[in-house]
């Protein structure tokens, strides 16, 4: 116990994550120095963090261009406790032993990989190790890597909003996972792909949820269809789809209120949204994107199961992977449901929503070479 905490306490502090603007390209080179975050409250900080709605996206682009490159997502994830644990484990170049496997098991469990998925991975390694399949620890590491990639590769399927017009994207999830923020980031991403986006403020329950989405719309210059708090969510989304159709929008992203998966009444409401959309377009929604908080533990499995039952989830987005939690839950989910993982959220800025790539994800967690 104490030694573990000491390890945590002594870890090298990560470079401060700048909340300010950043370049727009996805895989920018790593800057040698990252400037410290501006003092919140200084004029520059506000101009960049919350661009004036009146100035719209131009302002955002202008401030963004002046900024420094930020780290790729391998750099970000390799800073995680999970990756550091694994790296230090193998850096010692240990002998092949059951103790090594035990340590590996502990590392996987502490990353929320889950008891079952961990047992499966470790038992397989143990069996093969006893058959003397591995020459050294590095070979064992490669074996673990390939097993983990094999779990994730099939679910790394990017979302393609082409083909349908308007492409209806419904965003669902429990409370506080980052649905609205993800929508803002998604809208920006689609906009950059030169798609015409419309947002539907379907979270009519939470205080100021509509205002939050409108703020995003204002920043990006994307229209937001809303009826205000307390309105019927299905009706808002229905109207939005009509509007998207009439204005020839490419993508319509609908927000929904966060709901715990155990509330059957609220889950029925989601089914209603689907029914109502079906009246306009039998195939809508074309994507039901469920947002999962990356810090969630094994309950994520229950969440996904209930949402699948209620509305038929077709893709996942895992958020908040920029903290100390590093998404081991992704393995448990891939194993259990094999649902496509579309995006990961690696920070608070608009461009921190990335397409999920199995290798990039794993490279950050367990690099190929020691």
């Amino acid at each position, binding site marked *: *116990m104490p030694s*573990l*905490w000491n390890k*945590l*306490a002594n870890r090298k502090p*990560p470079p*401060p994550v700048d*909340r300010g603007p950043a370049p727009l390209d996805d895989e920018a080179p790593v800057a040698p120095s990252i400037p*410290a*975050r501006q*003092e*919140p*409250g200084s004029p520059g900080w*506000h101009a960049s*963090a*919350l661009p004036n709605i009146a100035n719209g996206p131009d302002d955002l682009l202008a401030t963004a261009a002046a900024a420094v490159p930020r780290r790729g997502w391998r750099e970000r994830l390799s800073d995680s*406790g999970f990756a550091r644990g694994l790296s230090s484990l193998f850096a010692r170049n240990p002998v092949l032993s059951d103790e090594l496997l035990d340590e590996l098991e502990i590392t996987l*469990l*502490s*990353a*929320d990989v*889950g*008891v079952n998925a961990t047992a499966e991975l470790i038992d397989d390694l143990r069996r093969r190790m006893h058959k003397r399949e591995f020459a050294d620890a590095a070979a064992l590491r490669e074996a673990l890597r390939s097993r983990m990639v094999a779990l994730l590769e099939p679910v790394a399927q990017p979302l393609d909003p082409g083909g349908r017009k308007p492409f209806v994207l419904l965003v669902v999830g429990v*409370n*506080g*996972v*980052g649905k609205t*923020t993800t929508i*803002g980031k998604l809208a920006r991403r689609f906009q950059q792909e030169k798609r015409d986006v419309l947002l539907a403020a379907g979270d009519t329950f*939470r*205080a*100021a*949820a509509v*205002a*939050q989405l*409108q*703020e995003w719309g204002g920043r990006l210059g994307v229209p937001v269809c809303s009826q205000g708090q307390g309105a019927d969510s299905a009706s808002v989304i229905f109207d939005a789809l009509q509007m998207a159709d009439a204005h020839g929008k490419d993508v319509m992203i609908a927000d929904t209120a966060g709901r*715990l*998966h*155990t*509330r*059957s*009444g609220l889950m029925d409401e989601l089914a209603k949204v689907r029914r109502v959309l079906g009246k306009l377009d039998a195939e809508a929604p074309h994507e039901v994107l469920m947002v999962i*908080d990356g*810090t*969630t*533990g*094994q*309950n*994520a*499995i*229950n*969440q996904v199961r209930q949402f699948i039952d209620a509305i038929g989830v077709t893709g996942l987005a895992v958020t*908040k992977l*920029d*903290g*100390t*939690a590093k998404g*081991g*839950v992704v393995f448990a989910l891939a194993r259990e449901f094999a649902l496509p993982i579309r995006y990961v959220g690696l920070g608070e800025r608009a461009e921190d929503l990335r397409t999920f790539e199995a290798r990039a994800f794993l490279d950050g967690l367990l690099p190929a070479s020691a």
Partner: protein
Amino acid sequence: MFDNLTQRLSATVQRLTGRGRLTEENIREALREVRVALLEADVALPVVQALIERIKVRAVGQEVLKSLTPGQALIKVVRDELTAVMGTQNASLHLAATPPAVVLMAGLQGAGKTTTVAKLAKHLIDHKKKVMVVSADVYRPAAIEQLHTLAQQVGAGFVPSHVGEKPVAIAKAAVDAARREVADVLIVDTAGRTSIDEAMMAEIKALHEALDPVETLFVVDSMTGQDAANTARHFADALPLTGVILTKVDGDARGGAALSVRYITGRPIKFLGAGEKPDALEPFHPDRMATRILGMGDVLSLIEDVQQKTDADKAAKLAAKVAKGKRFDLNDMKDQLDQMLNMGGLAGLMEKLPGVSSLPDKVKSQVNDKEVQRMIAIIGSMTKKERRHPDLLNGSRRARVARGSGTQPADVNRLLKQYTQMEKMMGKFARGGMKGLMRQMGGAMKGMGGRGMPPR
């Protein structure tokens, strides 16, 4: 998908039967099951390891009480230990300071800070405090507006703030405003922050320094996984936390995060957020949370309930009667039904069974005591003689009883069929005495938990 710990342990502890004491040897495998159960409940691994050690120390050498099976004995140790770690009392807020007493909220993004501010405000307002709230969240779009709306809903004073201001300046101005308005309590909402974001952690430290709050509450999502330990450690290092609020406990997460956070920070869990409405703030009960983490429903308290509320005299009389080989009649059946209602009825029993909490509300709402009450009414419509000698009930008597109790003859028939089954069962226990009967009852109830559906 998670078996409850009782079921999990039953296989491994079977071989303990007949042993008088728990020893390190014979509980090793059982402890492994406890470890898995705790991990599945999202208790952080270092905390699990520490707990297992403590449980081992306490369990080894314990005598297995005659009334409990070895499995139950071990579970009792586990549960007691978890309860002990989680703190023994539910601590409330300490607001004894020169008004305004400042409460600072801290936590990750999406933990539920803003909603909790509103709930706390409502809670304090209900306790006759004058409460003001302020948002120092200048980052998330519309966060300030959200708190404004919620403040209006619960009737708390709202100190306006703007995204252009510095959080520390907002906080200082809010304290002045609260002093001017003579508020008893000022609750300060803050932006969600990742614990390794140094700039943001420096900001909340500065806020804490400027405000000198009497309560610094760490808000944590009950669905959090292993990361709860890291995050709690970082926040506790940065801020002198005074308490923890666990949110979203109305979900079905087992809430191992509660244990991790409590263990790491050493701070009491003061409240639970259990719903979306502003009044959904509950006091924290360590024993209930321990039970929930173990996923075993409230089986132990159910057993206690059965023991306490069964009318001992009547039970003894019935046992004596059955033992003498006398017949179990409809009077006895009525006594049993009455006792069932005494224990809070079916719904009350259901609540305490493992696995039931995950049933949809629809199913739960179907369980009520109407059926039991109807059965009592049917028996009540019989003559004394008929109750003693149920064989007397021929067709025309049954029709009369149905009319008298406002039921259908089919209902009367069903009751008599159930009676016949019970009578048969009682015959079997004639030699087992009351103890055997009680054990059987416990077993039958556990079985019910497994099926999840009450008999119709």
